[in-house]
C-alpha cells in the first residue's frame, strides 16, 4: 500500500482547519483564507516526499501560507475590506462582534507586521521561529511586534478592558 499519500491525507485533514484559521487572521475573510490554505496544502503536497520523513510538514505548510498571504498582498493594489460577516460564525454569541473588532484592528497593520502578530500571538511561535519563517532577523521580529502591539493598543484599548479574565 501507498502509505505516504495516506499520511498526507491525514495531515491535511488534521491541519487544514488550523491553517484556515491562521489564514483568516492574516487576510480577514474566509474566502481568501480558503484560497491561501489550498495554496499552502498544494505546496506542501508537492514537497511531501521530503517532508514526510520528518515532522516538518506543519512548518512548511505555515511557511507556504504566510508566503502566499504576503505575495497575495503584494499583488493587490487595493486593500481587502475585513467586512463580510462570516456566514459560518458558529461561535458563542458575541464572538462574531469581537472577531470583527479584532480583524479591523489587524487590518491597520502592514502585511508583514500582521504576519508577525498572527504567528507570535495566535500560533504562539517563538521570536526565532517567526524570524525563520519570515526570513528576517529576530531583531526585526521584536521591533515589529512591539510596534504592532502599540498600534493595536491604540485601536483596541477599551475593547480589551471589557474582556472577562478567563484564567
Amino acid at each position, binding site marked *: 500500500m501507498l502509505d505516504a499519500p495516506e499520511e498526507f*491525507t491525514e495531515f491535511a485533514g488534521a491541519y487544514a482547519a488550523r491553517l484556515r*484559521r491562521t489564514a483568516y487572521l492574516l487576510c480577514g475573510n474566509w474566502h481568501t483564507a480558503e484560497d491561501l490554505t489550498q495554496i499552502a496544502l498544494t505546496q506542501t503536497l508537492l514537497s511531501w516526499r*521530503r517532508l514526510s*520523513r520528518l515532522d516538518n510538514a506543519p512548518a512548511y505548510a505555515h511557511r507556504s501560507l504566510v508566503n502566499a498571504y504576503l505575495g497575495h498582498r503584494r499583488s493587490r493594489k487595493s486593500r481587502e475590506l475585513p467586512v463580510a460577516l462570516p456566514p*459560518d460564525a458558529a461561535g458563542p454569541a458575541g*464572538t462574531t462582534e*469581537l472577531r470583527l473588532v479584532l480583524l479591523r484592528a489587524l487590518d491597520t497593520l502592514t502585511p508583514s507586521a500582521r504576519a508577525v502578530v498572527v504567528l507570535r500571538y495566535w500560533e504562539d511561535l517563538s521570536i526565532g521561529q517567526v524570524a525563520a519563517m519570515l526570513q528576517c532577523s529576530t531583531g526585526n521580529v521584536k521591533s515589529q511586534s512591539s510596534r504592532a*502591539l502599540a498600534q493595536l493598543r491604540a485601536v483596541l484599548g477599551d475593547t480589551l478592558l471589557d474582556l472577562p479574565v478567563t484564567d
Partner: protein
Amino acid sequence: MDEESFRRFMRQAMDGGEPGFGSQPIDGAVRAAGRIRRRRMLAGASATATAAALIGTATLAFGASGSGGNGPPTAAAARFAYVANTFKGTLTPISIATNTPGKPIRVGPDPTQMTVTPDGRTIYVVNSASSGTVTPVSTATNKAGKPIKVAGSPYTIIMTPNGRTVYVGGLFEGIVTPIFTRTNKAGQPIIVGGKHSMVSMVMTPDGRTIYAVSGSDAVTPISTATNKAGRAIKTGAGETGIVITPDGRTIYVESASGTVTPISTATGKVGKPIKVGKRPGFMQATPGTVYVISDPGTVTPISTATNTAGMPIKVGKGASDMAVTPDEMTVYVANFDSADTVTPISTATNTAGKPIAVGGEPSFVFVTPDGKTAYVSDWTVGQVTPVSTATNTAGMPIRLAGAQEIVFAP
C-alpha cells in the same frame, strides 16, 4: 496592553479555542482531500522527479555521464549556480567563484525544476502547476523571456542532448509536452497514462527515447524523433520513480511498496523486483551502482551487474536528496532532519564518511560540473551552503529565501 492580554483577546475573538480546533466549515478540507485523492501517488514522485531534473541538467547539460549531443559546455564554463527561490517566484544567480548572489530574476509562481541548454545560454524553468507555464531565462542577460504556456500542470522537465526539445511532465494529467527551443512553442501533449501521479522522466544518453512513469503500472517510452508514445512496458507495481544507468542500458523504476525493478532498454524485458528499504525515495545512478534512499535514513546500493541490493548504508535521518561528483567517486546525501548534515558516500567502498555540518535543514544537494563544490539548499531556513568536496567542509551559508532546485550555467 501586554502580549498576554492580546493573546487572550485573539483566543476569545476566535471562539476562545486553540488555533485549529474551532468550528470552521469542513468543505475546504473535503475539497483538499479530493485533490489529494486525485494525486494519491504523487508523494512518491517528488524526490524522484528531481532525479529527472538532475539527469536533465547536471548529466545532459554537462555531459558528466557520457551523454551524446553537440558539445555540452566544459566544466570550467559553469560560472553561476542558479537557485530557484520557490516561495519568491525568482531565480538567483550565485557566482561559483565568490559565492555571492546576484540580482534575483523574476520568473513565475513557484519555480521548481529547471534544465539548461547544452550551449548554456538558456535555462528553462517550470513554474509549477498553478500557472501552467515554462519560462526561458537568458544566462547572458539574466532576463526572463515570455512564459511558454503548456497543457495541464507542468512540473518535471528534461532536455534532449542536442538542446532542440524540452519535455515537460505534468502533475495530474499523465501527459508530457514537448517545447521546441528554436521557437519556444509547445507541441501536442503526449499521453503517457497514469493520471494519479506526476510524470517522472529519464532519457537515453543518445537522446532518442524518454521513459516516463506516472504512478500507473507501466513505463511508457516516448520517441523523441516522432514525439509519440510507444507501447507501455507493464511492470505492475504503481511506479513513481525512475532512473537510467549512465550507459543507458537499464532503467530502474521504484514503487512505494519498497521495490526497485530493472528494465532493459534494448529488449523492454522487466527483471525481478529488488527489495529495498521502506518508502524508497530519490535514486541516483552511477556506473555499476544505483543508490536508493529509503527509510529509515539509509541508502541501499544496487549492483547493476547482478541486480542485487547490497548492505544498506546508514546516513542521516530524513535523507532526501543525493548528488554524485563528476568523477563518480562520491555521492553526497542531504539529511533533511538529522543534525543539519550532508553525508558523503564513497562509491568505491559504499561506506559513509563523516557527516558534514551545514546548518539549517538540508533538502537538496547539487555538485558543480567541475566537481569542486556541492551546493546544499535549504528552504526552511532559506539558505544555500557551499561544501568543498576536497576537504568536505562547509563554507558560509548564502541567505536565499525558499531556496530549492539549482542548475549550473556559464
